[in-house]
């Protein structure tokens, strides 16, 4: 009976304006079978620092976050007066 803890990025969601929502699943495994799990989430806005992010997230962000996407995102925030 071996218990093991494991964290995996199990969901990556890309929003219309380029934000990337990342869900990490923290699992407890018993003999390789999941017996408990919790979720942790974070969001990356266009232009965010990608240091320490999951490689899959980095790949998506680098492809998605063109200068135009970042500029459009910033403009959308200003259009709401940062409210």
């Amino acid at each position: 009976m071996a218990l093991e803890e494991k964290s995996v990025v199990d969901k990556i969601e890309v929003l219309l304006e380029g934000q990337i929502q990342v869900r990490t699943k923290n699992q407890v495994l018993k003999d390789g079978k999941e017996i408990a799990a919790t979720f942790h989430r974070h969001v990356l806005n266009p232009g965010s620092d990608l240091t320490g992010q999951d490689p899959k997230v980095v790949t998506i962000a680098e492809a998605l976050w063109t200068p135009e996407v970042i500029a459009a995102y910033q403009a959308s925030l200003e259009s709401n007066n940062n409210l």
Partner: protein
Amino acid sequence: MSSNLRVNNILPSVGTNVAIGTAGGSVTLTGSVSGSITSGTISGVSTAGITTAYINTLSGISTIDASAAVSINQNLVFASGKGIDFSATANSSGTMTSELLSDYERGTWTPSFVQPATSANMYVNNGLTIYHADYVKIGNLVYVSCYIQNDASFSYDTGRSGTDSLGIGGLPFTVSNTPTDSGYHPIYVGYFNNWTSWSASYTPMGYFTAGTNNITLVYAVLNGITNITATYMYSSNSNIILSGWYRTDS
């Protein structure tokens, strides 16, 4: 007929039915039924006398028309974007936008102090203690709460200063960037302590910032609000407990 009839396959012609039993009679299954129903509709099945129906797998069934409750001993799994449709219920007098409950999730998030408009990190080497930070998402409505405290005096990150507006970043879902449709949502501050140079007359409050994953912190002044700036949370052991609901587009 008193003997048993064993049939391997019943293959009715297209448009015809197979009838088992007679009116007023019944069909009794003493063993189990294996295999799957891959298409079609089950309808008109009387549930009288069935007190509990345990269903492990329903495959390809388009309609279940039952007058009794159905108990399922496994999770009910929906495809992405699908859920529970409440459109059969009466609507309010307001403008209804959706009656589909398509998501539920709970978990944790990592609060941090940021400049709310830019999401730029505010402090470095801050030793922030997160006593608690979790979320519950129901449909597109997100509830978050947190209790955070800095363990030592902060140092400002590059380009930041004590006069910068202060916010809390790291929200688990992006705040909707169409607030005129999805609403403007406040936070509720239940507790705070050890803030630097804080006036007894100030009341901390804040709101979820559209299009970001940040909360903007403000305090009430005569006939308006003023941004809480980074200097107020600078000292050791300054802390805050807050919660709130907001809308997301995901």
